[in-house]
């Protein structure tokens, strides 16, 4: 389309409070319906690349299913980093404990980055996304 927007998904296909993943021009994007207002953000978490559409959307706040990092889909802003896991008080086997310790040490160095946002508009019942306006 001449204005840079491309059709992504029918607006009726996303219930309020819901989100769906689409792939456009090789880019993985999720479209979020926040009370009738649509936002589009990159599908991959700014922490460890998990698919955010499997997470939960509360208002404009999206929580990643993998480590619970949180983002504001209206701005892409990273709000919260990963939540530390708790595996109960029972002792874990030594090898598994060492593995978890190693993973934990590496994860301390993984930053949670803000996610990319895309311009959206609804026209003719379609949510359209401006791929080139990504921020």
């Amino acid at each position: 389309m001449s204005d840079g927007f491309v059709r992504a998904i029918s607006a009726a296909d996303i219930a309020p409070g819901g989100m769906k993943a689409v792939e456009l021009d090789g880019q993985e994007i999720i479209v979020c319906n926040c009370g009738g207002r649509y936002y589009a953000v990159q599908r991959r978490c700014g922490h460890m690349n998990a698919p955010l559409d499997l997470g939960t959307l509360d208002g404009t706040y999206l929580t990643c299913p993998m480590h619970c990092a949180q983002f504001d889909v209206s701005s892409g802003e990273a709000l919260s980093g990963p939540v530390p896991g708790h595996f109960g008080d029972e002792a874990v086997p030594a090898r598994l404990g060492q593995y978890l310790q190693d993973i934990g040490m590496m994860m301390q160095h993984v930053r949670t980055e803000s996610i990319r946002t895309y311009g959206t508009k609804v026209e003719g019942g379609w949510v359209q996304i401006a791929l080139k306006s990504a921020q």
Partner: protein
Amino acid sequence: MNIESRKKALRHFFAKVVEPMGFKFTPDADLVEFLLEQEVILEGKHGVPFCPCQPLRNERVHDMQIVCPCIPFHRQHFDAIKRCWCGLFVHKDVVDPDTLLQLSAKEVGLE
């Protein structure tokens, strides 16, 4: 990510937790800002947003009871004083939080 971003998330989700219990954020906006900032700092240190006004004992059972919002673990006490211990949350009907006293559970006859 920075302190202000994390404060936004805490504000959003805490409101949803305390609202069904009859509480709201204190109308004292400066106090809210200050306490949330302290919680984010504590979270950075311990991984959990503990209440900034209660001591940690390094005993999991005790310490988990002062993770903000800790209202469910101190319900009777906080209902009696119409605020949580640090004053971040007050009963929904409270207009002037300065009129509320920070009384211990013992002082209100609960211990």
